[in-house]
């Protein structure tokens, strides 16, 4: 919350006027009062429950209040696989929300369809509704979701509407490449070196 305490000194022709941006104030207010609508359809819901419970405590970030009416919510959590049959429902829920509104794709299925590359699954909710933050993972760890929420709060505060993705803390393919190189030299016996 440090941004409100910043001291601004005005000089030259601006002296005598104090200007600030209402947007910045609104962004600050909005990012700590997200009312969430959980659209929970699949196994990621378990991880969402863990996240909302006291152990990981989403309340620390001002996003703990779920609203089960889209008209009272301004953050749509899409948690789980979206089938073609559910797509109109999801679109309708999104359209009923009041602006400003944000969408968070929780897990790989909501982000891209995941491994359900078939006749019945929507390959990512961005095919239906605009999406602000993608959280990959099957399911994502609560830490990753908190990363996603903080990323969304940054975007809200700065007015950035471009989609963002939560990056893994490490590149998951990095180790695979190393393993392959080790294998060329003669097996995995060098595992001890890496530790």
């Amino acid at each position: 919350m440090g941004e409100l305490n910043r001291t601004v000194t005005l000089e030259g022709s601006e002296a005598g006027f104090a200007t600030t941006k209402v947007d910045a104030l609104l962004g600050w207010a909005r990012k700590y009062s997200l009312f969430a609508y959980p659209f929970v359809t699949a196994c990621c819901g378990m991880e969402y429950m863990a996240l909302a419970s006291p152990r990981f405590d989403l309340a620390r970030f001002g996003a703990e209040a779920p609203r089960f009416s889209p008209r009272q919510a301004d953050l749509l959590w899409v948690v789980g696989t979206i089938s073609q049959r559910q797509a109109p429902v999801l679109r309708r829920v999104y359209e009923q929300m009041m602006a400003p509104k944000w969408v968070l794709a929780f897990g790989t299925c909501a982000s891209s369809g995941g491994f359900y590359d078939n006749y019945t699954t929507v390959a990512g909710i961005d095919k239906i509704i605009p999406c602000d933050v993608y959280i990959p993972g099957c399911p994502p760890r609560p830490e990753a979701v908190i990363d996603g929420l903080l990323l969304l709060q940054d975007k809200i505060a700065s007015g950035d509407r471009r989609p963002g993705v939560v990056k893994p803390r490490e590149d998951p393919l990095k180790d695979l490449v190393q393993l392959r190189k080790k294998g060329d030299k003669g097996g995995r016996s060098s595992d001890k070196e890496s530790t």
Partner: protein
Amino acid sequence: MSKAALEKLRAKFGDAILETHSQHGDDTAVIASERWREVCEFCRKDPGLSFDMLTDLCGVDFPERAPRIEVVIHLYSTQKRHRVRLKTRVGETVDEELVNCAVDTVVPVWAGANWFERETFDMYGVTFKGHPDLRRILMYPEFEGHPLLKDYPAEKTQPLIPYRETDEDGKPLEKQAPFGPDEGMSFGRKHFTNGGEA
């Protein structure tokens, strides 16, 4: 275990039992499709068989065979504690159309067959003659075709609402989910259209 059941079916129906086989204690009889209902009723009512529980009813598609679709039911007797599997074969492909794909319903014999038969109709296009409510059960009514047939294209989707092509301001959608090399990761999204690989 219930080879006796197969013997009994063969003795009673003769030519209507096209083939039987037993493996690892599972016994299977293939029934001529026109006597399907009759055989099922016998299985349920005969005191020596008394198959009172329908465990499963499903379909299997063998596109190279004619008739190509098998309807399979798994039966269990809670009194005799034995099982049997009955199959029948229906449907042919003529000019890439599925024809003669119909068999009598067994809902009057086991009420639990109702939703199983709806699912088999939904996924394979088998029409169950006399079914009280033969609608799709998993797919939506607008869906065309039957997705578990082997000739249904694996990647064909039939969206109920059109996919987004413009963003909120009406501009063409340039960027899909930002997964891929541009975001500092070594993997990309499949069907990535914005300069990504493959």
